[in-house]
């Protein structure tokens, strides 16, 4: 699958649910250039080892408690290590 092609459908799923949209590298750079927040959801040790420039660290296990640190008015991009 070409880089940058959405990996699964995003948007309204038909039952009133908004689905997250899968994106590739090109969309990530475009969206962060437009002000999107970049969030690594891996544990702190993984984040300290290497993270994308400008990313903040909100590990999945702590995500609910940390959502107050994110700006609800801006799009959010989450990522982990790889597909899984």
């Amino acid at each position, binding site marked *: 699958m070409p880089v940058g092609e959405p990996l699964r459908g995003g948007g309204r799923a038909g039952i009133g649910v908004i689905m997250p949209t899968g994106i590739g590298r090109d969309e990530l750079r475009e969206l962060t250039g437009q002000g999107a927040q970049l969030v690594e959801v891996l544990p702190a040790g993984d984040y300290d080892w*290497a993270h994308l420039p400008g990313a903040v660290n909100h590990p*999945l296990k702590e995500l609910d408690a940390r*959502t107050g640190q994110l700006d609800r008015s801006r799009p959010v991009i*989450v990522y982990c290590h790889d597909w899984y």
Partner: protein
Amino acid sequence: MSPRAAWRLEATGFGPVYDYVAGKADWLAADLPFEGTAQLAGMFTRRGVATTGERAPVAEALRLLAAQGFGPVLVLNQAGVVMGAAYRDPLAAAPGEAEVGTVMRPGVSTVRPSEDAAALAHRMGHAQVTRVVVTRADGTLIGLFFAADMNS
């Protein structure tokens, strides 16, 4: 993990939420900048190494090799993908007007710039390999990693 995070954020009212599905592994393997303490192969890779095309004459590859002072000369296609490597002895044994593609070694082993540099150097030591070609996942050239550069 990131799909679950994306769904949780959506469920708590954030939007739009995007999931960079290929993740950090994809980013680092593409030789893109990062922040952190990692010491990756890409950081020690020699850039701007000598390259040529398969149709180039052997004499030109030998000139490039002499100017660079180390080998091999990497053979790229028009997209910058590594098609092979040309080494001094086979080049020197061929007629100067022969095409590099006739003497290059195709299918050279490559690594990604996201490999841990120390672990890679350790593996190379065991295999008695002094240098390895570093490419992105799409096969395009980044450069040459020399294990000895880790100590310099």
